[in-house]
């Protein structure tokens, strides 16, 4: 049987950008596709023991962000705020604590909508035998040690390993996030 392989490059370390690589990888693996995620640059935070629990949503520089009140916080007052400010005004991003507040609200919304958390999706990836590969060079760049990262990872590797993984397959696919 022809081998199908999906290789995902995860380069971002915000909460929203941690979702696509993990959702695609866990799903691809359940469809029987051999899957690996190569975590590089800020994407390493997704598999960092401590930082994976502190991923944030950035209100600043994200004008598409809706004023997302979680369903349990929606009432006449919050609905009025949402109708006046469909998104938090960009200037509010400089207020200390704004990023944490937005992250708190997003996490609450995620939970109330039955969407999996990042640690849950990492577990789903591991169960489905997704290879999780940390990038050696960026680990050194950021001063992350292998033991700072979660259990169950592949050995740190570089671009050549990634290319080889992709090209060994009969049907290779690459997704860059």
């Amino acid at each position, binding site marked *: 049987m022809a081998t199908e392989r999906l290789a995902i490059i995860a380069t971002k370390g915000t909460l929203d950008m941690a979702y696509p690589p993990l959702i695609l990888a*866990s*799903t691809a693996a*359940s*469809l029987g596709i051999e899957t690996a995620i190569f975590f590089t640059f800020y994407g390493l935070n997704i598999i960092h023991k401590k930082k994976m629990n502190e991923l944030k949503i950035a209100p600043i520089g994200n004008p598409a962000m809706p004023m997302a009140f979680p369903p349990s916080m929606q009432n006449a007052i919050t609905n009025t705020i949402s109708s006046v400010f469909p998104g938090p005004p960009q200037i509010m991003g400089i207020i200390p604590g704004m990023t944490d507040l937005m992250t708190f609200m997003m996490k609450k919304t995620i939970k109330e909508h*039955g*969407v*999996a958390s990042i640690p849950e999706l990492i577990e*789903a990836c591991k169960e489905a035998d997704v290879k999780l590969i940390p990038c050696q060079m960026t680990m050194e760049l950021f001063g992350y040690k292998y033991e700072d990262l979660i259990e169950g990872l592949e050995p740190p590797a570089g671009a050549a390993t990634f290319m080889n993984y992709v090209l060994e397959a009969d049907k290779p696919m690459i997704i860059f996030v």
Partner: protein
Amino acid sequence: MATITPDKVLDASGLNCPLPVLKTKKALEELQSGQILEVITTDPGAKADIPAFCSRTGHELLETVEEGGKIIFYLKKK
């Protein structure tokens, strides 16, 4: 109403993409070939995703029933 009697029922109500597909895959692993799994979901995305999962993996989608905001799938394990 469905007349199919499942060997196992997976209630994925309230869960969103990709959890219904991931849980379906796991539940099927516990069944023997030819046995039937009932998957209950409330995720509208599952309407396209569960059939896509079946066509990729070769499990047979016997029937889809929609009732009261729930989408119920009957899958026969390959």
